[in-house]
């Protein structure tokens, strides 16, 4: 079986490399690799040839909910942007806080953390507040290269922050560990690491002249004010929070509908007339590569499971000697996220937590430590979901790898923190209050 699964793995990798070499897009290269994996798997009837269409169609639904959230959240922010709300917010924030720079940076960090912490998705942070925060950072003199790096790290931390951490929830669901007691083990490192990130990446201010030049470039839409700007956000957060306050009397709307309702509020409060169809079309156009990646990663994951490649990855991680495993975790965990997104938590995380737990490591702290490492993988290809979104919302058009290069120091600090939490999980168990 080892030879068979290794053969299929090699075909998948080879197909991806050849497709990229032929200059196909990331999405088409992934699709080529998926098809190659399915066809090579069919040699061994894993999956049988006749089942390939079913496996692909079924796999394409793996991240349907994520796709819907991405679209509706981006539509929401696009409406705010078209109505002039973002320009207004940025100009006002920068003018008000430009003299208290650290406080401004800290507040912007909190603003990025909140949507992701409430929904468990760093993408939601970026889609809702990423664009205005990027502009505000620019106004505060943070260099263009560092802005997407800040957003990437903070959005990742937002996803890891309590109360909702999807990786931890997947691991808890898979390991039958209650999702309780994560507030401090996740909350404390997120706040500390977020503060360190903005200090490292945002401390250098470009020349003062930049601010005036920046402000002069921002055109304000007549009629836009704080009320028109904030009400749609209030509507969204109210819908998120009201379910938590009254979970048994308030209907479950789901994030996509909550974003659509907030979008309608933004549309009706816009001081100028907006063409909703045009905004929706341009949103789809902008998001298409990202949405296609999510659909194809689901297909790839399905083919990897049906062919045994997924199991091979999990097996390979589990046979690594413990000492070496800790050394390799900073690579394995982010790469698994880059390839499989949340699938990595299930494939590697669940058996890993059982294994470490059986050796006496404290499961809640181990899961918290791993949860700090997974978001880093959202910057890694082939998916690079959060990294690419950070570039999109901040209008960054340079080399993608430059973003990761800028983020190297916070990346290492977060990695070391996560690994230390796992290593000393028993001693940190006092953080778990349930």
């Amino acid at each position, binding site marked *: 079986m080892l030879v068979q699964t290794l053969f299929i793995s090699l075909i998948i990798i080879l197909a991806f490399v050849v497709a990229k070499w032929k200059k196909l897009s990331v999405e088409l290269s992934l699709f080529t690799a998926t098809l190659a994996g399915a066809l090579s*798997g069919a040699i061994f009837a894993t999956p049988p040839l006749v089942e390939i269409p079913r496996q692909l169609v079924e796999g394409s639904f793996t991240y349907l909910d994520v796709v819907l959230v991405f679209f509706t959240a981006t539509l929401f922010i696009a409406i705010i942007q078209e109505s002039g709300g973002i320009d207004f917010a940025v100009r006002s924030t920068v003018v008000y806080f430009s003299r208290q720079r650290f406080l401004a940076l800290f507040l912007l960090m909190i603003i990025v953390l909140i949507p992701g912490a409430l929904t468990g998705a760093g993408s939601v942070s970026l889609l809702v507040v990423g664009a205005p925060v990027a502009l505000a950072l620019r106004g505060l003199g943070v260099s263009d290269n560092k802005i997407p790096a800040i957003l990437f790290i903070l959005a990742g931390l937002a996803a890891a922050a309590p109360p909702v951490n999807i990786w931890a929830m997947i691991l808890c669901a898979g390991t039958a560990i209650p999702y309780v007691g994560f507030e401090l083990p996740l909350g404390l490192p997120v706040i500390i690491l977020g503060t360190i990130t903005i200090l490292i990446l945002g401390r250098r201010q470009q020349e003062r002249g930049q601010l005036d030049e920046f402000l002069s470039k921002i055109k304000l839409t007549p009629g836009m004010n704080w009320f028109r700007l904030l009400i749609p956000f209030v509507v969204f957060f109210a819908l998120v929070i009201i379910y938590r306050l009254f979970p048994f009397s308030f209907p479950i709307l789901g994030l996509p509908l909550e974003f659509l309702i907030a979008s309608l509020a933004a549309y009706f409060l816009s001081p100028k007339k907006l063409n909703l169809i045009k905004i929706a079309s341009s949103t789809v156009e902008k998001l298409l590569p990202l949405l296609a990646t999510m659909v194809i990663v689901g297909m790839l994951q399905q083919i990897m499971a049906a062919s045994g490649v997924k199991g091979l990855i999990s097996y390979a991680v589990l046979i690594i000697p413990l000492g070496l495993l800790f050394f390799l975790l900073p690579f394995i965990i982010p790469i698994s996220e880059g390839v499989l997104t949340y699938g990595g938590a299930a494939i590697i995380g669940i058996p890993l937590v059982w294994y470490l737990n059986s050796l006496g490591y404290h499961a809640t702290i181990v899961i918290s430590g791993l949860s700090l490492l997974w978001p880093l993988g959202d910057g890694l290809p082939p998916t690079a979901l959060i990294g690419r979104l950070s570039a999109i919302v901040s209008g960054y058009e340079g080399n993608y790898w430059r973003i990761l290069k800028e983020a190297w120091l916070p990346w290492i600090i977060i990695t070391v923190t996560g690994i230390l939490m796992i290593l000393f999980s028993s001693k940190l168990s006092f953080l778990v209050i349930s």
Partner: protein
Amino acid sequence: MKNKLFRFKIVWGIIFAIFILAGGYPLYRHRHYSVQLICGPGVTEIKKLSDYFPPLKDTMADTTIFVLQGKEPGGKALILANTHSNEPEGMLAVTIMIEKAVVEKGTLYLIPFFNHSGGVNTRPGEGYPLYFSIPTPWGKKTFRMGNRDASPLDQWPDPDVYIHYPEKQMLSYLDIRNTNRTWPGRKNGLPMEQVTYAAMELLRKEKVDLAIDLHGAETMFPVTNCIVAPEKSMRIATLASLTVKSMEGFENHLESSPSKFRGLSHREIGDYSDTLPFLLECPIPFLDQPTGPKTEKLLLDGKDSFLLSLAKKKKLFVPYDQSGWPIEKRVGQHLSVILEIIKQYSRKMPARAIVIKDVPRYPELVKNGVGYYFSDPTKVDPKKIVNQ
């Protein structure tokens, strides 16, 4: 040029439509495939879960209850299978009981497809087979392979976080479609909360003594090959565990139901009714992450070389060798433990005893296989067949 682009789009549109139809049709068929269950001599009544909570009537969440009432009054037991429809051992054990069991004293309530919606759902991203077939002396009997959670076609959207009723514990958003996280259920809740609410109504109205929820778990999961029980059920669980070990030679250790982990049958049934709950887990190598291809063969014989290698490195929580963990062993374990729990309870509470006969136990299952106990549907009275 414009015509060329148009033609290109048309051709790819057609290819895409064919691909969607070829891939989607098997999924449509799976959702509408019925499993034939044959009522044996012990079945005295067929009910629906909606009889205990009418809003479920005519929904995909409703499911069939097979009642086996003895001639003598006695205690009552509810046995649930396919709470997680990707753990089919329990469903096979209950299907055998529906065909073979005869109750002499007391009453059995058997639900083979508890999360019916989960049974017609698939698991995107996991590459499961859609069906599995059990060889029988007359051919093959085919069952649907389902999912752990109810279908989003029947319950959607999911919240961004699931808040359990009534304890308000936060759980993964997916667990709102998991009928082993929605106990004790909610009358005005979502369909899966209503399913567990209906089951609680059954327990309360029929004054059921024992509830046994049948599951399977990964070999790398510590809570596998065991009986999970709360404090009030622990004595009976202990006696059952010790008896099957000494009499039938298989391990089935005990796990205490954690009081802080909410929504599970072994916790909430005990806390919200007078019934004694038990949850049985048997090992299913198919569910483990580090396995080879997710094939029907792996599901049935439980043989996997990756797991064998990990077993040698002592990374599994159950004994594992070349023989794998075949389906007849898993179904046999469930049947023997069910019978033993009922026997131990009957000894402790003679006035509420339940006496069952003709149900095969572990050694017979291992010897004869699962299919040996299924009747040929073409040779039984059609009135005895229930499509589920």
